[in-house]
């Protein structure tokens, strides 16, 4: 049946026009990972529950594991790889996640970052409660969430130019300094930049000193 054949979809990923050959049952997650070759976006549950696969479609956070790939035609998708800025610097959210110990194994991190990005784009100065609501669909087995909330607050402050106040009140910053550069950095950076599946990348970030 003709309709079951694969189709070429054309869409924009992290600002670049791309195309991918996808089957009708493919999800956007699979199109990104297997079609475009961007493996920063992770699959956890595959059923909308965990948020590891969160990407932005036309600016809104969606679970890419439930988004039919064919519906990406003509859309603009942002993945964790797209957070890194043009000059190669990490996004303030990525920096804060590392600094505040919001990354441990790193598997949830790409999704948590994208939900956080969607939130800050809509609401640059969210309360802790608003952060929890926005990230309720991002499960993390490691951090206990507190560090993630602190990191998002710190990134918001940084982006709003009120960073000093936020950093001053956080026990997180001090406690996680080691996490950012030390023991956790191997996986931490990998998670933050979406490079877990790219060993070369992951090892370059592994300046484990602790």
């Amino acid at each position, binding site marked *: *049946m003709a*309709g*079951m054949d694969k189709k070429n979809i054309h869409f924009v990923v992290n600002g670049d026009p791309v195309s991918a050959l996808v*089957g*009708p*049952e493919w*999800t956007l997650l699979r199109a990104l990972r297997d079609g475009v070759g961007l493996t920063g976006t992770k699959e956890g549950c*595959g*059923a*909308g*529950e965990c*948020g590891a696969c*969160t990407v932005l479609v036309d600016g*809104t*956070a*969606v*679970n890419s594991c*439930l*988004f*039919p790939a*064919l*519906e990406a035609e003509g859309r603009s998708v942002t993945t964790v790889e797209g957070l890194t800025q043009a000059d190669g610097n990490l996004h303030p959210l990525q920096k804060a996640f590392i600094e505040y110990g919001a990354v441990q194994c790193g598997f949830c991190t790409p999704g948590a970052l994208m*939900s956080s990005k*969607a939130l800050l784009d809509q609401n640059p100065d969210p*309360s802790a*409660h*608003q952060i929890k*609501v*926005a990230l*309720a*669909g*991002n499960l993390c087995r490691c951090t206990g969430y507190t560090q993630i909330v602190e990191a998002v607050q710190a990134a918001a402050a940084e982006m709003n130019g009120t960073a000093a106040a936020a950093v001053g009140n956080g026990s997180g910053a001090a406690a996680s300094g080691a996490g950012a550069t030390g023991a956790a950095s191997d996986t931490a950076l990998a998670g933050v930049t979406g490079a877990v599946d790219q060993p070369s990348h992951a090892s370059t970030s592994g300046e484990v000193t602790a």
Partner: protein
Amino acid sequence: MAGFEYVRPTTLEGAVAELSMRGDTAVAVAGATDLWVNIRSGKMKPEAVVSLRGIAGLDVLTPERADGGGLTIGAMTPHGKVEDSAWTAAHFPALQQGCAGLGSRQVRNVGTVGGNICNAAPCADSATALMLFDATLVIQGPGGLRELPLGEFFVGPGMTRLLKGELLKEIRVPDPGANTFSRYIKHTRRRGVELAMMSVGVRLTLEDDMTTVKAARISLGVCAPTPTCADRAQDMLVGKPLTREAVEAAALVAAEDSQVRDSWRGKAWYRREMIRVLVPRAVEQSGAYVAAGLAPALDDAGSAASSGASAPGAPTPDDPGASSGATEGGA
């Protein structure tokens, strides 16, 4: 997951034609947050999926007037749009709460109100909230449009009165009139992403004397095979002065009349008990007691003198939660 044909019509009539032509082998897909899970798990094996995403004009939230009136919701309107609508929060608070408490933000950004209704789960949050407002469904079929009250739409879990080839076009919510108060409480074991163990909505419209109940609705999720209204209980309130005693008596009747069951999410006795507890709490939080002079007015911050979990009449920016986590819900 097996392959299937993916059809993407650009008009509602076209989608109806595609579905009608294929009969039982085809299924419509809106936001896919229910359907894709079922296909992936193998529970559903359609030969064709007819996507409604390419159809313009179904993602709309149209208030009748800026200052009130009724509301038209396109079937493809995602819950996030209703959640973010200040107008809906002001004029149909229970509806905004039902939509804001569903799933996660990612799920609300794509899962649609039409999909929630047509999926016909007993726990469907936006559908249960809409039951409060006497919504009418506008359905497109091969022969044209027809209308059906939402209250007559559900047949059983996953079963509706949609006929082969028919699609939901929009939901029309009539003007409930002045002096209307509503609240939707989703009862869950945790505050995060979870399906309701049970849910309670209330809507009261008072006469201009601000005492006599003109109209009352009590809707229940997961208290029967489909979202329902507690008919006998809500009728007890109409035409009489609003009092706490009357609401408590109605809550008892709503609990008695419910068809609650045991499931792994909760026991029947507990669900029944929570109807009795949450109906009065929902009325309290709707602001109706304040309006009727039965409770002190809320201050600007939204907290009443009496305080406590039951205080806020409307969700504050910090508590959009329609959710009453079981941990804080201890009667």
